[in-house]
């Protein structure tokens, strides 16, 4: 009995810790519940890039990160998921228009030099060797007329190239190309040594700002194509979350009423165990950093179903043992031990399924498998430890005096029990003789 009381306090402390954890740690919600976007990109091989290397992927990732998260403040994550694929997750933003543009722009800046005829007229343009790679920084600025311009600062090498170029073509135009499109063709008035240049065009502030971000992020080392995109607006996310809460709550209340009605006092104990179970499971989600998605919540709710099942198995078995005339203490123990093989085997098969799903499933499926597996493991603990402990403390030993407590009738109870006792240690592993 002393052990039982110690165990009781352990359960209480665990529950309190769980409440504390739930209260103090934030819930990590998936994009489908808080809104946001997910994009899967794949790097494309081209004629010039026959093979995508890991270095290119790293560079691609870094460039995209600088592009969509120039200040580095938002919670955007980019991770490589396969050899050639990147997964981008953008919380709370479901408007992909801007993001798509940022992802697809090539952002190739190039200065071109003129090919001149004998009269000094421009025949065509050719590459000067000065590109976006020689850039140190781009910024939005205004010119004397108050128009928006992009100010370019070259690095040492770029400044040298630029000085050379302006020296060679003094008095002639040079061209600035961005993404294959000529932005301007200023005439060089003098050699420029400081490594500063400016692009003037008919810029709006937004456009200038967007291009500056692209220039600062640099060109993509390898072109990338969108394979998959998902976006959920925060409105829909909140809607789904609220509905899941309501559904979960209603479901739980009905299940608890059912248990109370059918199993009476043990049902009440199961209900309390169920609440403790839910608290511990939720706390484990938070501690292990599980991201809750709609599928994850479904997994959790399903695991509640399995936790209840464990209790039902035990109670049905205990009832049978009582009917056979056992005393309370042995009937409860026998009920638990006999039900345990069923619970263990059925939960193991669920866990096997979960493991396979976790490693092979898509993202949605993974979330589901994880919450279900955690739920099933916790449910074994709650059914075996919590319910059993409470049952023993509540009923103690001796004969069952009030069969109605278990939803039984006096006439259901038989005198003798003819099956020989099973050794408890053996029963746990399914050996019953």
């Amino acid at each position, binding site marked *: 009995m002393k052990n039982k009381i110690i165990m009781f306090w352990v359960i209480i402390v665990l529950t309190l810790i769980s409440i504390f954890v739930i209260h103090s740690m934030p819930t990590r919600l998936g994009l489908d519940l808080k809104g946001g976007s997910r994009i899967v990109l794949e790097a494309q091989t081209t004629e010039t890039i026959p093979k995508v290397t890991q270095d290119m992927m790293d560079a691609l990732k870094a460039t995209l990160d600088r592009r969509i998260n120039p200040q580095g403040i938002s919670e955007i994550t980019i991770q490589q998921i396969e050899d050639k694929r990147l997964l981008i997750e953008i919380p709370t933003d*479901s408007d*992909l*228009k801007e993001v*798509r543009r940022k992802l697809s722009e090539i952002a190739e800046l190039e200065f071109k030099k003129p090919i001149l005829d004998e009269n000094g007229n421009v025949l065509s343009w050719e590459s000067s060797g000065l590109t976006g790679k020689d850039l140190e920084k781009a910024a939005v600025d205004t010119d004397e007329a108050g128009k928006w311009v992009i100010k370019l600062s070259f690095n040492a090498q770029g400044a040298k190239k630029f000085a050379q170029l302006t020296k060679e073509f003094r008095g002639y135009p040079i061209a600035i190309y961005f993404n294959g499109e000529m932005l301007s063709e200023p005439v060089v008035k003098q050699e420029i040594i400081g490594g500063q240049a400016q692009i003037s065009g008919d810029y709006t502030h937004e456009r200038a700002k967007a291009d500056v971000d692209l220039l600062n992020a640099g060109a993509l080392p390898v072109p990338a194509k*969108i*394979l*998959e*995109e*998902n*976006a*959920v*607006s925060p*409105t829909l996310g909140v*809607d*789904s979350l*609220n*509905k*899941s809460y*309501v*559904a979960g709550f*209603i*479901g*739980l209340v*009905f*299940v608890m009423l*059912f248990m109370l009605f059918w199993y009476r006092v043990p049902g009440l104990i199961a209900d309390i165990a169920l609440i403790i179970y839910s608290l511990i499971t939720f706390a484990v989600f938070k501690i292990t950093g599980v991201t809750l998605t*709609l*599928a994850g919540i*479904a*997994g959790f*709710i*399903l695991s509640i*179903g*399995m936790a209840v*099942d464990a209790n039902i198995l035990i109670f*049905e078995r205990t009832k*049978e043992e009582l009917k*056979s005339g056992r005393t309370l203490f042995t009937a409860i123990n026998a009920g638990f031990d006999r039900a345990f093989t*069923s619970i263990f*085997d*059925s939960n193991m*098969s*669920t866990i*096997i*399924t*979960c493991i*396979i*799903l976790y490693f*092979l*499933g*898509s993202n*949605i*499926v993974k979330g*589901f498998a994880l919450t279900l597996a955690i739920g099933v493991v916790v449910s074994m603990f709650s059914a075996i430890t919590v319910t059993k402990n409470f049952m023993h403390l509540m009923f103690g030993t001796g004969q069952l005096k009030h069969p109605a407590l278990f939803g039984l009738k006096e006439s259901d109870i038989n005198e*003798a029990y*003819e*099956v020989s006792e099973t050794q408890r240690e053996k029963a746990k592993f*399914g050996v*019953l*003789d």
Partner: protein
Amino acid sequence: MSYSVLNTKKIIDVVKYRWLWLTISFLLLIPGVIAMIYSVIQYPTHSPLRVGIDFTGGSIIQYSVSENVSSENVSDIRAKLVEHNVENPVIQVLKPSTSDSENSIKYILSIKTKFAEENQSEEIEKITEIIHTDYPDAQVVQTNSVGPVLGQQLFINSMIAVTLALLGIIIYLTIRFHFEFALAAILALCHDLLFVLGVFSILGLVAGVQIDSLFVTAVLTVLGFSVHDTIVVFDRIRENNKFYAKKATYDDIVNASVNQTLARSINTSLTTLITLGALYFFGGVTTKDFVLVMILGIAIGTYSSIFFASTLVAWWNDVVMAKKAGNN
């Protein structure tokens, strides 16, 4: 009455009426199987179920709108989209819930089209513009675009996952029970699977319901639950067989075991169905089909664990016994 445990109230005689139970199973499965065969012939994808964009590739864009969209308006929108070269648009209007709270979404207009390989982003923006001409308050609440390559990969991965899960369960049950139990459990599982797939095949034909990766998750859960249910009954047969193998026939043991676990089987299914029912009626619109799969699966899983799996085990035993007798 020292023989009491085996003489518990017999509510159902599973062994005696085995042909009846097998016929019921057959009748439950046959419409779905016919629907699947019909679908394989009928659909351009040659799949037994109507597969969604998760597996075939495509785009679904969903808009929240404040007023209901009548079927005339739907055909209007479709005509406009086709006019603007949107390929084969499928339009649906969803009603997310019955709740009237201010912030909840009233109606969802869902548009499905092909995945545009080259200019996917412009395609979506074009559709949004077209919708905005008729429904200026429409807001994109969800977009989902999957390229065809990724879709096929997901499908193959899902199939591998299902196969491995089945194998894992067979191995586990063979170790813990006997091979015939594993076989019966797997047959019961296929029974449940076939039923659920059949119903969704019919729904695909009748109501255009499509399956997505959430569907696969739900099916896998059903598999887990089906085995869960079957194991409980088998566990009881295993236990009773230890004690009564010499005192009673195998058929009696199976019958008694099924009846002893009957209350548990029904109560567990009931409680799970209660939670699922709550999810179905009060949960989000996105998980409705997902929950429906589980409701169907758990209902049929309970049936099969009582009437199908145990019948098979008893039958197997009869056949083995007859063989042994024949050999002697």
